[in-house]
């Protein structure tokens, strides 16, 4: 059985894994053959990383069978997974930066002589391991003195140094530039020819079509399907990932585009704006009284663009103009002074302070701008809180309720109120409807439109295409961290966005 070359290398049947309150994986099948690169794809929460963590022994599965080369396996730790031939290279280089390249490759399995580490032998072994990934460097220097690309190849060399049969690469290219990706793929092709099974998780469509033989798509913890790359058009892949039935989208009546003609002046202008390695270049302008959408798959650079505009990361290229005046935003503080507001997609981690009350959460940013030496009078705080509770329809027993006791949609409204209290000119909403129920979603959408009508410029980031098409007059589409199109008027449909994401030239 194990010697049968045509049998699959890895066979997973009916894999199930739950976390408290969430079914992360439900009855997922996954098959990898020898000598293939298999792309594992899916949007946020699809279950890719859970699948990989189960496979590498980090999580214990609740149900399902694993076969590697025909034999049933059940790795209970990274070490056990390695022992049966499953090696992993993680997205973030998970090595020890201060130690030498040679040590990083050999840690835990250093060659020894009379029980003591044989440094010369280790250097030789590291050089040999790196030769397999076509890298020749001084292995005695610390890992941190090399580029991320070389660190990634070092991690790959470490993974191969145990006799790996199945290699898992978790977003291996996310910090590499185009040339480095090319070099990595060169190595992967060589390893594939050697008969290794390679699983690759990635968000970059171009890369999938450049190297993957087959694709497995997951969505919401379930298997959507397994396809041969050559027989799966990009459009179809994208629509399967985002969960919009392709034929339904194409057949659906075109959404009414052109919601609300802009009333004001151009407020924000970005020209060739970006930061190499993070996102860009992006070019667009936004008027007062306009809602513009930013669409793209997970990891396409939507949030990164917002972070650049808001000064959380500094832009390195291009120009940003605010109200016609060129400006360099160095920090969120400065952005706030300039009338910018940003609600993060990660509202639990970066926005709401759960133990503070609704009132305290609302006045937070305003008080920060005023400075701690000029406390807002309590009456004013209460007036503000009441005003926004009414305006946004926050359902809470009162302004003194702790925010953690509110529903997700109401927490989102509190966050919004915090920024609106500053009376901003530009509001950036990053996934404002994630994780809240349908009714609350509709309310937030309505709110966005009424804010627009009041003359606010709004940059609306969402993975839900329906929402974007319904609420925005124009949509800028990003793919692989570059702006690939701007849709407006009749072209602004779900179909149009999907086509732009997939790359129109490759569309069927």
């Amino acid at each position, binding site marked *: 059985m194990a010697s049968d070359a045509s049998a699959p290398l890895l066979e997973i049947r009916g894999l199930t894994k739950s976390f408290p309150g969430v079914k992360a994986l439900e009855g997922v099948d996954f098959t990898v053959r020898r000598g293939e690169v298999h792309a594992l794809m899916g949007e946020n929460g699809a279950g890719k990383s859970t699948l990989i963590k189960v496979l590498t022994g980090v999580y214990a599965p609740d149900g399902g069978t694993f076969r590697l080369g025909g034999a049933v396996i059940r790795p209970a730790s990274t070490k056990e997974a390695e022992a049966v031939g499953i090696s992993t290279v993680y997205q973030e280089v998970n090595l*020890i*930066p201060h130690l030498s390249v040679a040590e990083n490759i050999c840690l835990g399995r250093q060659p020894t002589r009379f029980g003591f*580490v044989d440094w010369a032998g280790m250097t030789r072994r590291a050089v040999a391991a790196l030769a397999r990934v076509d890298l020749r460097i001084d292995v005695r220097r610390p890992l941190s003195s090399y580029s991320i690309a070389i660190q990634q190849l070092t991690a790959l060399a470490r993974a191969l140094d145990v006799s790996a049969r199945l290699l898992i690469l978790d977003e291996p290219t996310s910090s590499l530039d185009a040339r480095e990706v090319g070099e990595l793929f060169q190595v992967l092709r060589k390893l594939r020819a050697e008969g290794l099974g390679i699983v690759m998780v990635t968000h970059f469509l171009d890369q999938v079509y450049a190297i993957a033989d087959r694709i497995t798509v997951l969505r919401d913890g379930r298997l959507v399907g397994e396809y041969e790359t050559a027989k799966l058009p990009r459009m179809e892949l994208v629509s399967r990932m985002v969960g919009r039935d392709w034929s339904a989208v194409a057949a659906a009546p075109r959404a009414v585009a052109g919601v609300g003609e802009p009333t004001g002046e151009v407020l924000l202008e970005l020209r060739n704006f970006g930061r190499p390695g993070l996102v860009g270049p992006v070019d667009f302008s936004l008027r007062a009284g306009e809602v513009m959408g930013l669409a793209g798959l997970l990891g396409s650079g939507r949030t990164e663009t917002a972070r650049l505009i808001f000064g959380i990361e500094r832009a390195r290229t291009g120009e940003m103009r605010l109200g016609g005046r060129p400006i360099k935003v160095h920090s969120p503080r400065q952005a706030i002074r300039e009338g910018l507001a940003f609600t993060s997609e990660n509202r639990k981690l970066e926005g709401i302070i759960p133990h503070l009350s609704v009132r305290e959460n609302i006045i937070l940013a305003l008080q920060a701008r005023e400075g701690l030496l000029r406390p807002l009078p309590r009456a004013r705080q209460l007036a503000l809180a009441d005003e926004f509770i009414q305006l946004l329809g926050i359902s809470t027993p009162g302004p003194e309720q702790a925010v953690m006791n509110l529903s997700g949609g109401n927490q989102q409204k509190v966050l919004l109120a915090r920024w609106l209290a500053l009376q901003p000119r530009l509001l950036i909403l990053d996934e404002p409807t994630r994780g809240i129920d349908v009714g609350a979603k509709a309310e937030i959408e309505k709110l966005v439109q009424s804010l627009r009508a009041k003359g606010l410029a709004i940059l609306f980031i969402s993975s839900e295409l329906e929402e974007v098409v319904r609420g925005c007059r124009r949509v800028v589409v990003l793919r692989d961290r570059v702006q690939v199109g701007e849709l407006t008027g009749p072209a602004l449909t779900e179909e149009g966005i999907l086509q732009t994401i997939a790359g129109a030239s490759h569309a069927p």
Partner: protein
Amino acid sequence: MKPPRLNSQYIPLVATGVVLAVLYVTGGCLFPNFFSLRVLVNLFGGNAVLGVAAIGATFVILSGGIDLSVGAVIGFTSILIATLVEEHHVAPLLAISLALLLGTGFGAGMGALIQRFELPPFLVTLAGMFLARGLAFVVRPDNLGIHHPFYAEGINHSLALQLDSRVSWPFAATCFVALFLVALVLAHYTRLGRNIYALGGDETSARLMGLPVARTKIATYTIGGFCSALAGVVYTFTTQNGDPAACVGKELEAIAAVVIGGTLLSGGVGFVAGTGMGVLILGLIQTLITYQNLNSWWTVIVVGLLLLLFILLQNVVSALSGRLDNTARHG
């Protein structure tokens, strides 16, 4: 190929070496008999307790942890040995073995707590400090001289090396140097030693690399406990005395020696050799201030300033190397 350059990790070590040399030469220039054999021998003998403790602290700090129980364990060990030998007439070697065993087990216990329940090392070893100090006073509330022939004759004469007619190399210094050599090999030539570096460098990565994180962490505190107990033993050698109140705050002095020796308090970077030099630097400052006839509190002030200087230096070095890494990534 890039031109070879000094690995930025060695800069603090080199700086420590330079400070040590400058202090020694300064002393030699200021005071006529500073370069004598006696000063050198006293430097090692007088700082043996600190040296042994600091070597243990080096491993703990390299692993990314901290051990605050060092001084208390020294006190406990010393009074335990003194009481056993003088009042219960236990053979000194047996008493010493027992004390070492207890200290090592104590360290292992703290390590197990830190590992098993993911408790902060600061708090666990703080509790360990109170516990050990309290136990020391339970053993005996006041100090007790050791007059057993093994100490009076063996340690002082037979085991000391007569260097010339007036100067002899004390056995305590031999213990320090021997432990130093063992520690060098342990840190740099064993898998355990390298795993301690990896653990301190990045615990998550170490776990994902399949390294035995749990075992390594417990082993680190076990080594720490052994070294604390050995420092207690060495204390009885140098003072011929057991004292439950001995060495209060010694752990902080040990940490200072480790940091001055170029080890990062955040873990993962550092050298046993650096700690050796750090201990000698602290000793030299003490000697210089004694020669200068200054109040000994000046020692503490100078050590404080030096510590500050080294922390700043490390900050600059890591900022510089961070910048180099960034240019390598984006340049």
